[in-house]
Structure formats: structure tokens, C-alpha cells
């Protein structure tokens, strides 16, 4: 699978950022690292979505926005679409990616499972940042049971 070479540069940068954030933190600051990565992703998501939606018409509703994240946003960032989108119609959306790009090179199963969260914090932040800029406040978490598949759960905050 040939990838764009500049896409590769982004991947290496992401790996190094994860490494950097964890290098300069203590063992007991793991949550802090995750939060930091998440906030970096948030800022990137905010900017990206502003650019991605410049040419499109206005979104109809929340579901329309979610579909945009699953299709266009995902495709632009990860070169593929989300494989499955589910919702309970009460503000929870679950996005499943069967081959999440940041995990495909790490493992095909359970090996290195413990490190998966490190590499999902930035992507979670990107989703949250993109949605926030589109006017949808949410909490985004990720769950992995066997790499490289990954589920992102988006919980809409209505206040």
C-alpha cells in the first residue's frame, strides 16, 4: 500500500511527539501526558476543520456533522473512511475503524496493547477539536480490544 510520502512525515512527527511528551514526564503523570496530547490534537482539529469545510455548504444537523467526520474528515486525515458509525440517538456516537492508521504498524492483535492509548490521544483530540469548532461540544474516548481496530466514542455535551 503506497502512501503519500508527506503523509509519512506526519506519522513520524506524531510518533516523535508522543515520545517527547512521555519522555519529559514521570511514570505517575501518564494521565497528564494523555491530556497534553489530546489538547495538541484539539488545536489541530480546530484548524483543520476550518479548512476542510471552506468549500462545503452549511451542515443540516448533528448527524450531518457526524457523517462529515466519518467520511470527509477521516478520509482527508487517514486516507480511509470510518468502517461503522452507530448512535443511540441520545448523544452517543461510536465510530469504528477496523484498521486505524496509527495502529496498523504497531501490532496485529494483543502485542503492545498497553501502549495503544498513547497513540490514540492525539486523534481523539482532533475529533473533539473539529467538532467543537463546528459547534458540537463533546467528550471523545477511544477503545481497543485488538489492534489495529479501534472504536472512538463521542459523547455529546449538551449544556
Amino acid at each position: 500500500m503506497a502512501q503519500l510520502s508527506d503523509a509519512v512525515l506526519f506519522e513520524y512527527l506524531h510518533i516523535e511527539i508522543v515520545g517527547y511528551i512521555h519522555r519529559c514526564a514521570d511514570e505517575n503523570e501518564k494521565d497528564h501526558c494523555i491530556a497534553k496530547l489530546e489538547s495538541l490534537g484539539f488545536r489541530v482539529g480546530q484548524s483543520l476543520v476550518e479548512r476542510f469545510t471552506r468549500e462545503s455548504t452549511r451542515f443540516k444537523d448533528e448527524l450531518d456533522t457526524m457523517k462529515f467526520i466519518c467520511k470527509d474528515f477521516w478520509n482527508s486525515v487517514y486516507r480511509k473512511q470510518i468502517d461503522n458509525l452507530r448512535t443511540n440517538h441520545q448523544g452517543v456516537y461510536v465510530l469504528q475503524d477496523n484498521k486505524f492508521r496509527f495502529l496498523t504498524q504497531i501490532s496485529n492483535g494483543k502485542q503492545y496493547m498497553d501502549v495503544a492509548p498513547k497513540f490514540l490521544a492525539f486523534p481523539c483530540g482532533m475529533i473533539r477539536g473539529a467538532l467543537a469548532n463546528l459547534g458540537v461540544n463533546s467528550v471523545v474516548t477511544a477503545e481497543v480490544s485488538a489492534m489495529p481496530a479501534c472504536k472512538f466514542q463521542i459523547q455529546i455535551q449538551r449544556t
Partner: protein
Amino acid sequence: MESEDEEELVSSDDNEKLCDRSDTAYVTNHLALPASCRILVRNGTCLYYTEWNRKTHLSMSKDEEFKLMYGMIFSIKSFVSRISPYDLKDGFLNFKTSKYKLHFYETPSGLKLVMNTDLTAGNIRDVLHQIYSNIYVEYIVKNPMCELGVPIKSELFKTKLDDYIRGLSVFPMKLS
């Protein structure tokens, strides 16, 4: 050509072995009826060793074998370049004994791939390049959990390498 011909080696049940030395880096594979494959890095560390049809093993430890291998490659390389009338970019490609062929591929970054095969194998430089670019780079270099220059532990890499070798048409059904 059967790998049983390699009578100077001793039999083993192990299909895959990881080298545990960390001061030498290299990997070898025997191919085309590959017997083994190993990947070494510049300082001589064996990063990875695996074998397929190799039926016999030397009466020495893997450790010693890797050391010998690196020493030999180092010597051949320097000998070959010394007697060459031109500046050799690729170094040496392979050598043959009456029983097996040893193929060598080195990247400009000093990663060395060594693969032993039976005598039927032609030029498998491309195979070695593919292992480097599609498997090593893809699943080791791009895997943040794999430190470069230390023995490879990634299961994904092992699987991909094994799948690739077994999928090669040059290898008949003999790989067990």
C-alpha cells in the same frame, strides 16, 4: 533441490529464532528454498534471525554463529572492495558453496540482510530489497514500539516476513 542436502547442518524443530545478542545486529534468511534469513545492523548486532527449511545446525551457539557471520561479511566486504578496480557501491551480492548460496544486501544506512538458500536460487536482490522496504521499514521503522538497532520483538514483523517468504513463487510447497 532439497534442503536436506545441507548435510553439514544439524536438525532442529525450531522454525524461528530470535537472536538475543544485542551487540551485533543482523538478520539472515535462507531463501529460494530459503533456509534462513537474518538482519544485521552496522555495529554487528543481529536484529532478527529466522529459518525455514534449515534441517541442520552447527554445533555452536547461535551467538557464535552470528559473530562469525558478521566477521565473515565484514572481511568479504573489505576484501571485495580492495581488489575491485572501481568504487563498489553495492559490495558483494552472494557466494556459493557446493551446498548452499549466501545472498547479501546492504542498504546505505548499513542494514545488512543475509539470506541462505539452496543452489537453485537466482538473483534474489529484489526479494531482499522488498523485505527491507516493505517489511522492515513498514513494520519496524514505522513502529514506535520498535527501537532501531536492537533485536526485533514485533510479532507483526515476524508474521509479515513469514507470509512474504511463504508467498514467493520460487518456494514450492516445501516450507513447513
